């Protein structure tokens, strides 16, 4: 079988004709779509549609990569949320010590200090000497006392 003859034989086979009714339908739809897109352009696009349009332009070249990145961020976010929730729940579960407990603790600390021969810790609420008084007068008052 001659290669050239075979190719010529194939070339001779007439292809199917495009259905004639398609012409009007396809051209009408193409023109209608242009009119629709023009009328959509004339309306003020919302900021959201503008944002989506810009984003899709940026994200379109590698949609899978961006989707993967978004998925990673979602996982990180959910892990973060789960861990912070757990800490809050733990903190809420611990009861705040009562004022009586504080008083007992303070008394025990003072007793321990006396046993060890140290001066008792200064109370935070003890009145401080008047800072407006000059230091020389303070010394005089001490001597008089």
């Amino acid at each position: 079988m001659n290669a050239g003859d075979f190719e010529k034989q194939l070339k001779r086979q007439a292809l199917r004709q495009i259905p004639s009714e398609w012409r009007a339908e396809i051209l009408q739809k193409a023109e209608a779509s242009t009119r629709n897109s023009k009328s959509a352009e004339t309306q003020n696009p919302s900021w959201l549609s503008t944002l989506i349009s810009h984003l899709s332009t940026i994200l379109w070249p590698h949609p899978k990569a961006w989707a993967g990145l978004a998925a990673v961020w979602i996982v990180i976010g959910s892990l973060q949320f789960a861990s912070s929730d757990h800490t809050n729940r733990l903190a809420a579960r611990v009861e705040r010590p009562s004022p009586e407990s504080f008083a007992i603790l303070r008394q025990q600390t003072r007793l321990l200090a006396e046993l060890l021969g140290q001066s008792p810790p200064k109370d935070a609420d003890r009145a401080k000497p008047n800072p407006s008084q000059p230091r020389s007068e303070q010394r005089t008052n001490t001597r008089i006392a």
Partner: protein
Amino acid sequence: MPAESDLQGVYDEHAQALFAFLLNFTRSEEDARDLLQEIFIRLARQPGLLSGARDPRAFLIRLAHNGAIDLMRRRGTRQKYHEQLAEETPTIFATGENPDEAAFRESLSRALVELPPEQRAVVHLKLWENLTFDQIAEALDLSPNTAASRYRYGIDKLRERLRPLYEEIK
């Protein structure tokens, strides 16, 4: 938008070739129509699309090819689509009056379906669009050497497949 008459002119000049290519590539009249419609919508919306093309026919075939590839990807793997095509197999040829010729066309149509889509596209453009390998390379975004080798492989397979029938009708 190109003037209405421009779009009509483009249709009259290229639609038949695009239809034949798409029908051979997709083997579905419905898909060929949808893809053809998409191309013309795009042409209507982007007025300068064809004016920048060196070879409008090659450019339009490239649009058609890309559209068909996207369609196949949307539907799943090429292999799956290929199997589906083998089951449907609508003919891409005009109905012949001569029974021998009709039988040959029927067999040729089936043999074309068995080719991988890339080989089928090259064979179609070379045989029935009379494009050069450079034009085919431009249209299908491949090198001229690849286009030539795909054509050769495709023709060899068709010859093997159709040898008995061809010898009979010769």
